[in-house]
């Protein structure tokens, strides 16, 4: 019977690595490799040459400094949003509202950036960032509060708040906050002191990417190395035990949401102060939703979002190029993204199953939070 059968030996191999390394690097890369492999088959079936396609893809990411910096610019909000979502998910709160929080942060940052005059650049930018953090954080605290006080399901409330914020933004940029010329549905430009300096002309690169990496590292330190983060994680894993251990469950949820939304809001602020310099209704191409995938691909480990955010940024950036050069429809990239997420979820579940059967059946349970 059992003989020498080791059906899961592959996952034993993964479990050889410490969990941090697994989550941050091994699993995302593995998922990527498998995804590319299967996508190649898809490409062949649909009549494209995968070798050419992937060459264009490679060139679209690493081809020259211009495309590479574009990838970094695209990954910046993804890393930030993904980090924020990871923090909320670790606390067992399904924050699907990063899109709205991104907008909230961007709006507040823009407003501050337009009206803040007379301060030195460093201070101005700091205040703009703070505004972004507060805007996004406040927008996320609302569903957190509704959850702990009134037991409102956060999935529903965060999605609704997305719609409200996006609608509110459209209203603002066509009404109260519209540019002085009143031509386009957009705001005026923020003051020069509020703009992130360009660090590599002639590309558009600013220090936003470095800030995102820094925030991801700080978030990882908070989560894994501070009492606050320990409480947040314990609440996410077993709220009853957290209460038993004297942790303030409700407070932890609110703080996690504040940090989560704050990171998304900061992403909005960086987008405005680094690239667009103004606010308009379609400022996010869905960063808030891609961020969920980024967090999942990183097993909700903020450090991992640096790599997974970069991978998604690269996919997004290179898909445009491939569409132009190899005439491959960009829908295919939606499929690729989907595959990558499916793989990562399958991997993490299976590898945990090998580590312990007992955990596996808990991992599938929807997180609940006691009061």
């Amino acid at each position, binding site marked *: 019977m*059992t003989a020498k059968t080791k059906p899961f030996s592959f996952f034993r191999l993964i479990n050889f690595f410490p969990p941090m390394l697994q989550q941050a690097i091994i699993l995302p890369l593995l998922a990527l490799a498998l995804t590319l492999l299967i996508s190649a088959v898809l490409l062949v079936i649909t009549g494209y040459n995968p070798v050419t396609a992937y060459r264009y893809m490679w060139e679209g990411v690493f081809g020259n400094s211009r495309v590479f910096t574009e990838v970094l610019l695209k990954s910046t909000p993804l890393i930030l949003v993904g980090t924020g979502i990871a923090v909320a998910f670790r606390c067992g709160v399904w924050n699907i509202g990063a899109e709205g929080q991104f907008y909230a942060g961007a709006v507040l940052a823009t407003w501050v950036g337009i009206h803040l005059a007379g301060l030195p650049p460093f201070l101005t930018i700091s205040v703009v960032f703070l505004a972004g953090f507060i805007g996004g954080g406040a927008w996320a605290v609302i569903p957190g509060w509704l959850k702990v006080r009134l037991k409102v399901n956060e999935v529903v409330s965060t999605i609704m708040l997305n719609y409200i914020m996006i609608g509110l933004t459209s209203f603002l940029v066509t009404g109260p906050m519209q540019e002085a010329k009143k031509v386009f549905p957009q705001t005026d430009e923020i003051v020069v002191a509020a703009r992130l300096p360009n660090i590599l002309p002639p590309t558009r690169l600013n220090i936003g990417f470095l800030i995102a990496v820094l925030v991801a590292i700080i978030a990882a330190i908070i989560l894994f190395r501070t009492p606050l983060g320990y409480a947040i994680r314990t609440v996410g*894993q077993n709220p009853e035990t957290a209460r038993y251990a004297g942790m303030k469950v409700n407070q932890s949820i609110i703080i996690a949401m504040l940090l989560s939304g704050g990171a998304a809001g900061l992403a909005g602020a960086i987008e405005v102060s680094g690239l667009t310099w103004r606010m308009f209704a379609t400022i996010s191409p869905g960063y808030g939703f891609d961020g969920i995938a980024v967090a999942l691909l990183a097993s909700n480990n903020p450090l991992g979002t640096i790599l997974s955010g970069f991978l998604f940024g690269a996919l997004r950036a290179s898909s445009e190029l491939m569409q132009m050069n190899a005439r491959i429809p960009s829908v295919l990239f939606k499929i690729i993204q989907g595959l990558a997420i499916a793989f990562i979820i399958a991997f993490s579940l299976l590898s945990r199953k090998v580590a312990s059967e007992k955990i596996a059946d808990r991992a599938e349970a929807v997180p609940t939070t006691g009061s």
Partner: protein
Amino acid sequence: MEASTRLQLIGISKTFPGGVQANKDISLTVKRGEIHCLLGENGAGKSTLMSILYGEYHADSGEIWLDGQKATINTPKGAISHGIGMVHQHFMLVPTLSVAENIIMGMRPLASFLWYMKDIEKDIAEFAAKRGMKINPSALVSTLSVGEQQRVEIIKALYRGVDLLILDEPTAVLTPQETRDLFETLRNLAKQGFSIILITHKMNEVMEVADRVSVLRDGRMIDTLPISEVTPSSLARMMVGREVSFNQEKNDTPCGEPILKVEDLTLIGEKGRPLLKNISLKVCSGEIVGVAGVDGNGQSQLAFCVTGLMKPTSGRIWIEKNDLTGKSPLEFLKAGVGHIPEDRHAMGLVLEDPVAYNFLLQRYRDNYFKWFGFLNIKTIFEHARRLVKVFDVRTSSVKTPAANLSGGNQQKIIVGREIDRNPRLLVAVQPTRGLDIGATEYIHKQLIQQRERGAAILLISTELEEIMALSDRILVMFEGRIIGETDSDRANIDKIGLWMAGMQPEEAKQT
């Protein structure tokens, strides 16, 4: 006539990733129609061996023979198709579904049974009755007692046509009456030709129900013997490898200041049902007060109230001089309350977290574990390594997730953590649930040591033996009230029994 062999395991070995060798070359034979007890210390490899037989784990080497034929079992489904069923210690029922729905789940496509639910319910009731079990197939699982849920698990397995049933520590969560019912059922099944493998840590149960016993130690099979050739102490010696004393020496410690004072505590449940009625009690420094009673008579709620996890409807709670009525669990912790909770998986552990962090839990804000506001990983791990040694927690490392430990070793983490915090008041609910006799002896010693140190201990247990062995005073709970109080003299045991059944004997009042 010699019964035929139902199951034969030959040379089963299993090493977990991380290097723990849980099973070493184990061979085991189970006959048709026998109740076979599997004994061994915590972490000896019992659950692992059974999980291999049930297809949940895969052996590295070894063979499984069923009815004289070599078999390959890769999944629980495969095991069931070979006639092997298992009831896990932690039930896997869906509480919001009915008994019948739970039993039938996964057997046929959903659509086909929705139409015939009434027929199926009737069929299940008849099926159970034929095997000596009573059950209401239309009842919701969430309304069942633990013993009834277990019965559902058993029927669920049998209904799939299994004739070899594995029960992993089924009695750990049962009341004595439920245990008797279960054994009655098992004997019935055995008579009908079913084979049963039963894991338990309780010697008296082994002696009562088993036909043969196998003992594991350190992943190895020590011996298999017919029940007529063993005694509780010979079994204990085989398991632990040394003599185990079943009785605890206890010094007379003078009772000190009252630590816990509860006055007129009442708790009304969700549907207006009173769960606790006018409870008043006192536990002094250096005193162990045992709370006996059949499970479900308010003991859990009492424990939750005096640890701050539930807010009483009325009444007051003092810890030493502090009135903590209505305060948060944190305030209770700060006042020096330790708590060994009843259900270690629901509360008290974070299974996904490493062992080290499970030793940290309440103390995560202690300066001792901090370094400039950050968690000091080094001290957290050192602290855990020390406690792992002191409390003999069998784990390959303190980095292992708690879920990978055997049930008894998980319990040792909680007990060790709570005792190590040197609480003023220790609320110990079923502190030795799932522990082997050696570990039970050790934990009992520790509890007595805490008492001698001057701690107040509220010991809540459904095991009368445990209560009798440790307590200075005994309270008996019935339907949310304290129905009687006595000292722990052996002579009182009948009186306690009557109280537990809710009776108030005239004689008891006079003495």
